[in-house]
């Protein structure tokens, strides 16, 4: 940051001339170190203990799920027909389901889909939302109007209803689910970016850039986007969590990921019938998987928010 770089002269009032060599060490210790914005954000993030812990937790979950084909004790759809609805034991840590499949293995395989959908939806909707939000906020006019009316519309109709209708129409392949979720999710990010851009484009440094002849593209890319990167990153993180919950809800209702593919949501949909039988573990473990993953992502989002905006006391 600029202020840090200039700080020695302003704070210490030291003359720019080279000090005597014997003093150099002492002065260097007093001298504030120049840090890039990234470094500052990173250091502030490290102070948020839960967020740092969550990063490791999420990494562990991701690695475990991605290596399911090597580490899962059983196959995704491998059945032991005589050993169904088995409670957790030494062989099946999380028990077996109604057709004798190992729940732990299925959670690992299901996690691949849930995480993939979550991350893909977040990336896609962030890219589209940032682009359109920045254009709408910067240029205003009919694009801005169209964006605002469109988002108004989605405040009026429950998005889960629109998603369910769309999924029923277009099928439930992974890529379709991702595209359809992203088609709804980008609007949140677009609204956030638009709001930020609207306030930043009135700032003096943008005016200065314009006065010195910078093009619109340059102003957006060099002056505006770097200043809205914080809210974008935070919202993208939270979008991963929201997409995972939405996917699981749609799969639970039967409109999302279909068997034989496994997702945490459709495991719960099947386990639901056994909640009052003696097989509640079919509902506990997939639900806990969603809860822990989403909780970790939300903590990371929280940590990022504090790191990017140290003044915020939400």
């Amino acid at each position, binding site marked *: 940051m600029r202020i840090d770089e200039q700080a020695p002269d302003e704070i210490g009032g030291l003359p720019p001339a080279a000090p005597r060599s014997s003093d150099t060490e002492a002065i260097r210790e007093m001298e504030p170190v120049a840090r890039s914005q990234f470094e500052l954000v990173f250091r502030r993030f490290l102070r948020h203990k839960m967020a740092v812990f969550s990063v490791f937790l999420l990494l562990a979950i991701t690695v475990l799920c991605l290596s399911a084909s090597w580490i899962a004790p059983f196959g995704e759809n491998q059945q032991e027909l005589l050993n169904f609805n088995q409670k957790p034991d030494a062989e099946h840590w999380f028990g077996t389901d109604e057709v004798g499949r190992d729940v732990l293995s299925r959670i690992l395989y299901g996690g691949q889909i849930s995480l993939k959908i979550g991350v893909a939806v977040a990336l896609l909707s962030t890219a589209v939302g940032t682009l359109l939000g920045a254009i709408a906020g910067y240029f205003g006019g009919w694009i801005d109007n169209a964006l605002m009316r469109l988002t108004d519309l989605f405040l009026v109709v429950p*998005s889960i*209803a629109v998603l369910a209708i769309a999924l029923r129409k277009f099928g439930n392949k992974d890529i379709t689910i991702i595209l359809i979720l992203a088609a709804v999710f980008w609007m949140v990010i677009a609204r956030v970016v638009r709001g930020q851009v609207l306030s930043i484009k009135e700032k003096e440094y943008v005016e200065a850039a314009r006065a010195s002849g910078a093009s619109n593209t340059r102003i957006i890319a060099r002056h505006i986007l770097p200043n809205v990167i914080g809210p974008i990153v935070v919202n993208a993180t939270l979008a991963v969590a929201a997409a995972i919950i939405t996917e699981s809800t749609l799969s639970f209702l039967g409109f999302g990921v279909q068997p034989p593919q496994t997702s945490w949501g459709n495991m719960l949909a099947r386990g639901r019938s056994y909640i009052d039988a003696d097989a509640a573990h079919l509902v506990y473990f997939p639900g806990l998987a969603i809860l822990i993953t989403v909780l970790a992502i939300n903590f990371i989002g929280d940590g990022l928010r504090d790191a990017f905006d140290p003044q915020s006391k939400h």
Partner: protein
Amino acid sequence: MTPGLSAVGTTLRLQMLTFVVRRVAYSIPVLIVASFLLFCIVRVTFDPTANLRQSRDVNAVQRERDRLGLDDPLVIQYTNWAGDFVTGDWGESDRTREDVFPMIRRALWVTMQLIFWGIAISALIAIAVGVYSAVRQYSIPDYIFTGIAFIAVAMPPFWFGLMAIKWLAVEPQQAWNLDDPPFYFVGLHSATGDSGFLDYARHLVLPVMTLTVQIVASWTRYQRASMLDSLSSDYVRTARAKGVPRRKVIFKHGLRNALIPLVTVMAVDIGLLFGGLIITETIFSIPGMGRLFFDSLQRGDAPVLAAWVVVTAAFVIAFNLVADTLYAWLDPRIRLG
């Protein structure tokens, strides 16, 4: 009353009236555009002649298409449909052959009960917990409430519903050897036996909890934040310095102003609540709007779905209108702006 005060009252009433009229006028085009788009989505998604395709009569499909006017341009179809809609002719369900209007009316009545209790109880909890957490910021209960809120937001609502059935209905019934579970999880009334308020309440507890768990958590966080803002404001410090009793400072000066932001959030979350109904009513077999949507979507019942999305949109718009009016009444800067 002094003449001056009554003049202020008249201006306020006039301002509020202008505000409401302006807001209603703005809502109507929103509703028309929304209903048109939704109508188109439903129309292109579902084929009302799907179950005639197996018919041996090769002309059956075309006859039905002509009868329903499916080959007309979408705008014409929409105008015809909207014309019937406003006169109360909402068509008949492909699934049950029943008129759509009474179906929706029945479902809406059930749903309104859930929404009413949901909003009332969520608002009470959010305000109570939010104010407590703000007044005793960083106390142990504040940390506990924060933790609970984080978990509640991260939990898929349908999973919470299943857990609630397990731990508040099934398990206690088995543990204490009861004839009935302490809270029911099917429908809103018992089919037989007593049907008093207690029975109704025992049916409502779990669905309302499931419906509101996420919004209670987020409203609580919101209320806590806005209460903290308001407690650190100058007018609260002034009131304290004047020696106004602590209780009065918190509730009259602090809480009153801290309620305004909550009203906005509540309005925005109504749409979310209608989405939550689809899950809640499906889990608890409640014959409301959510369940109606789920059943109609599974069977591709286009007439019901078209009416459903438009009625839902109208309700959300109406709720927003009420919230905006309340907001304008609380905050003069809005109604004048």
